[in-house]
């Protein structure tokens, strides 16, 4: 097992915790490809592990998109998950998602919602619908103050506007087939609400106060990397938060971790076990590997590179 990070602040390292529980974190069959198309975003969210924002110009170029499409054609993933930054801001995104939709039974696009209101956002929403893409949208809370504390001023109303438009396109309707899921990350240095309870409250609040419907809600812990780590350091919460993540280690989550069944490719075409290892600069296999040179999918049993940020995926119910 490879390891980056050595247990900061006197906290047992993630590797040691796995060993103490007699667990190994190894890859299972690779069934999903996550495609990070770049760091350009129209928001600068306080919890972003990749430090995305309007000032970033790293985006996937056409040649790398073709390599991703070729990979999807060769390996036929059960699902392909397009994320960023804001995918809507990447030139050529239409070509990428249209090609990928034909090569996988489940195309997922992650959206910050706000980008759907601006520029090509409206046209892209319709393209998502036509491709029957699953949309996973970020919404941390059902009130404006918490939402804007995490995502910036003016984001609440623009998020509501985007959700109403998606409902209007047929996304997120009860019994409908156009799937719209929400993701809620905590607005600070605390753990997420239990998913089932939070989903019930989101469903009630959004329907009652805003007439908005959606299918599922995922609640995930913030990962202590990037801009969120800077917040933790600045606010004096870093040690307490890391202790909380480590203390909440749930050995039952390891079996279902997404890094076991997913490959992540970044905008440069480089491979990682997951988007968080991407943010931490940890390459798949320990050395920089390119998607275009991938001859075979990882063998089941191949070790996953780990670091102490992995605690964010094993706390409580885990990140699967």
């Amino acid at each position: 097992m490879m390891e980056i990070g050595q247990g900061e602040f006197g906290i047992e390292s993630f590797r040691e915790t796995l060993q103490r529980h007699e667990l190994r974190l190894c890859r299972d069959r690779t069934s999903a490809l996550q495609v990070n198309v770049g760091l350009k975003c129209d928001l600068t969210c306080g919890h972003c592990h990749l430090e995305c924002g309007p000032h970033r110009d790293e985006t996937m170029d056409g040649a790398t998109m073709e390599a991703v499409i070729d990979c999807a054609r060769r390996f036929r993933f059960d699902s392909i998950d397009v994320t960023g930054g804001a995918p809507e801001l990447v030139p050529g995104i239409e070509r990428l998602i249209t090609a990928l939709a034909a090569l996988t039974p489940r195309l997922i696009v992650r959206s910050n919602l706000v980008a759907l209101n601006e520029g090509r956002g409206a046209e892209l929403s319709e393209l998502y619908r036509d491709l029957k893409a699953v949309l996973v949208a970020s919404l941390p809370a059902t009130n404006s103050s918490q939402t804007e504390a995490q995502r910036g001023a003016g984001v609440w109303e623009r998020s509501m506007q985007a959700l109403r438009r998606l409902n209007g396109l047929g996304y997120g309707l009860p019994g409908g087939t156009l799937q719209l899921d929400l993701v809620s990350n905590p607005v600070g240095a605390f753990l997420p609400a239990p998913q089932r309870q939070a989903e019930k409250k989101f469903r009630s609040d959004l329907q009652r106060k805003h007439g908005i419907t959606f299918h599922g809600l995922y609640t995930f812990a913030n990962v202590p990397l990037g801009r969120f780590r800077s917040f933790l350091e600045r606010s004096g919460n870093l040690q307490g938060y890391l202790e909380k993540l480590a203390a909440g280690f749930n050995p039952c989550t390891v079996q279902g971790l997404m890094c076991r069944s997913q490959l992540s490719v970044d905008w440069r075409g480089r491979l990682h076990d997951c988007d968080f290892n991407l943010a931490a600069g940890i390459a798949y296999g320990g050395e920089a590997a390119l998607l275009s040179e991938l001859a075979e999918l990882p063998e089941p049993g191949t070790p996953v590179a780990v670091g102490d940020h992995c605690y964010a995926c094993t706390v409580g119910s885990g990140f699967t």
Partner: protein
Amino acid sequence: METYYDPADLAKFAEIGKDAPELAGKFFDYYAAVFAEGELTEREKALIALAVAHTVQCPYCIDAYTRACLEKGSHLGEMTEAVHVATAIRGGASLVHGLQMRKIAEKLSL
């Protein structure tokens, strides 16, 4: 000891079981059962606890249930309203005793 209250003591609450483990065990079992989801959700119970914490003015409880409320999905608006409920009852409890004051004063006065 520089102050009577040390935030680090909260994590040592279980040490109260030293020398009287059976009573502590019964208390902590009861405590866990009280806060488990029942007719009220865990989130609603945490909001009640937050309000009561302000009534008993326990710094440990305020710390613990502020965090618990956030982690159960409540937001600051709901939490502030819960504290106002505690405040209204505390204030109301004082004010309603004014009726006793008035009754006694009326009996004594010409």
